[in-house]
């Protein structure tokens, strides 16, 4: 193996792949077959973290950064003048196996620029996965990118070898897509998703009857949207995320604050700030939808098309709906308990179990890990002390902000700072 050549390629192709946010290795329960190499960990493992704090779990590379498309937001767009490279199939296999044996990674995340045609590219991606599974008896995690416009037959084959498949829709609105990626059609993205979804459903139902049915993309599908590139509202983004969760049974939708990579009049200029706070609020909303039983219309609607920047979406919802509160944590049902700001799902679980034994007071809740600085205005417990004043939403918000600090506070505070 020519290490110097590989090293050059790796630098180019890993650098180009880093804007894909997803690095999850969870959700698959593939086991090690016949004393081969590797298995998948259901909860996923992050083997390292980049200096920007993102998980490094998979070897995330492009097969090639040659591309026939010219999407404005993409660093490997045809018209961008960057060094190009391509891996051979065997080189990717060797790298994956050797990194895996040293416990650097959970598996492979293989994406690619589109060369010649979508089918041609997809075929190459599938052949890497096939080689890993069949020749190397590799049972670790494989995430393949579905190339927009790939044929159903190839998507079917991809699911047999990969744990997760994903297509990045990148631009949340169809009008934005026309503006930034004129070569791509919306249907090119949804067709592979639809195919994979149907196959997953089919394999699941077959598995119920025949236990030996092979796995088909056990970790499901995911997608990614760029935030802050085309001026869409939070409502646009979250409604389209909710649509993908519902229609295509997505395991995850990722939100990626747009990092300017090219000079283009349609996009924010190079050097403009990455909207990290907004990204954070979108993820919080995503969690509220998936785990806390909120419906999208409660958090974002025509009257509130954008999320509050200074408080989290759950607190913001609670402040708009003070008529639900205060509630008694010792009696309230799980659904409403999870809606109290400052109480997360872990605390909900602990509270529900603990209150079977005795009535809980402030001390118990504090030890369990509830963020009382927020929760105290919305709940009562087994104590004579609770918030008796008749406070309105602005007052509560002010008091919470005054008694807490947030890492993004300096980004939206109107207060001028004394030193700097």
């Amino acid at each position, binding site marked *: 193996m020519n*290490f110097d050549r*590989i*090293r050059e390629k*790796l*630098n180019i192709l*890993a*650098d180009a*792949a*880093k*804007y894909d946010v997803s690095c999850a290795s969870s959700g698959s329960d593939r*086991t*090690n077959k016949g*004393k*081969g*190499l*590797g*298995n998948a*960990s259901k*909860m996923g*493992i*992050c*083997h*390292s*973290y*980049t*200096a*920007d*704090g*993102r*998980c*490094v779990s998979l*070897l*995330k590379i492009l097969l090639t950064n040659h591309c026939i498309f010219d999407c404005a937001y993409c660093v490997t767009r045809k018209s961008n003048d960057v060094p190009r490279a391509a891996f051979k199939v065997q080189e990717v296999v060797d*790298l994956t196996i*050797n*990194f895996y*044996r*040293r*416990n*650097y990674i959970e598996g492979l995340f293989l994406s690619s620029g589109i060369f010649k045609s979508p089918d041609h590219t997809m075929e190459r991606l599938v052949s890497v996965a096939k080689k890993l599974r069949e020749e190397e*008896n590799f049972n670790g995690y494989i995430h393949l990118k579905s190339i927009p416009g790939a044929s159903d037959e190839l998507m079917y084959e991809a699911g047999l070898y990969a744990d997760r498949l994903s297509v990045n829709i990148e631009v949340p609105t169809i009008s934005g897509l026309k503006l930034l990626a004129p070569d791509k059609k919306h249907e090119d993205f949804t067709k592979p998703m639809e195919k994979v979804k149907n196959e997953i459903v089919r394999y699941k139902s077959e598995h119920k009857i025949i236990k030996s049915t092979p796995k088909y993309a056990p970790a499901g599908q995911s997608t990614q949207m760029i935030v802050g590139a085309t001026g869409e509202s939070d409502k646009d983004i979250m409604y389209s995320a909710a649509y993908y969760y519902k229609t295509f049974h997505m395991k995850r939708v990722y939100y990626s*604050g747009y*990092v300017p990579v090219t000079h283009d009049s349609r996009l924010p200029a190079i050097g403009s700030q*990455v909207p*990290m706070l907004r990204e954070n609020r979108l993820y919080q909303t995503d969690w509220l939808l998936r785990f806390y039983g909120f419906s999208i219309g409660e958090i974002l609607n025509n009257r509130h098309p954008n999320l509050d920047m200074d408080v989290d979406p759950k607190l913001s919802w609670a402040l708009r709906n003070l008529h639900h509160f205060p509630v008694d944590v010792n009696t309230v049902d799980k659904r409403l308990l999870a809606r109290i700001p400052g109480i997360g799902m872990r605390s909900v679980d*602990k*509270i529900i*179990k*603990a*209150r*079977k*034994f*005795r009535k*809980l007071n402030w001390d*118990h809740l504090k*030890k*369990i890990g509830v963020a009382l600085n927020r929760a105290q205005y919305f709940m009562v417990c087994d104590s004579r002390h609770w918030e008796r004043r008749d406070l309105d939403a602005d007052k509560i918000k002010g008091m919470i902000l005054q008694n807490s600090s947030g890492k993004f506070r300096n980004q939206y505070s109107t207060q001028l700072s004394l030193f700097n």
Partner: protein
Amino acid sequence: MNASTTLIYDGSFNGFLTAVFVAFDEKINVADIQKNNQSQSGLFSETETIFTHVEKAKRVWNGIRNRSHNAISNVYFAFLSEAEGVEMILYSYIQKLMRTKNGKYLDYSDSTVLYIAQLARKVGREKHRMEAFVRFQLTNDDIYFANIEPDFDVLPLISKHFRDRYADQKWLIYDVKRKYGIYYDLDHVEMVSLNLKDIHHNKTAKSDVFTHEEYEYQTLWNDYFKSTNIASRINPKLHTQHVPKRYWKYLSEKKEAV
């Protein structure tokens, strides 16, 4: 009231369970349970040395497990934390567990129960970290070797994970702090103790113990690690929160930072 007694055990988990068995069996008023190498007798208590008895330990293990699977894993994980005085808290945890009918391990409003659950969680987190932060290096004898220095004694907990995953390669994970390791010989995992001349943490100098290719792959990995970083999103605080500095010396991608 009987005079209180301090039980001395050999430091092993089975030894601890035997001590619990003896305490229940002989209705001893336990003052403390201590390891034999760090025992300290109290002014008003007698001491009794416990000899590890696997059968007795097994009865305690099964007794707790019959109450709840969750409780037995909490007990085992919390024991491996090696926290000072954890034996006595575990003893009172087991007493509470046995006294009530069921479900006591879920009473998070009881400070002992909450403490043990939280301690077990800490150990679980360390176990998960070690599954992530072990970095094997290929030696000339074809063994994948790694040193670790975990906060808690997690080797017994991670051995299954590595055995299942790396079934077709020989590997050895050595705990530098506790001076023992686990070795897999393609068949089963066994405990080993080594006379390590030097600890193989990150050095820029190459050792001839490892294959030549080993260093090439480390270079590739370090390059990859650098390439994945997005400079405009840098967040050192978050980074060290996920990868605390105490682990850096065993992570090859951190070679230059150390």
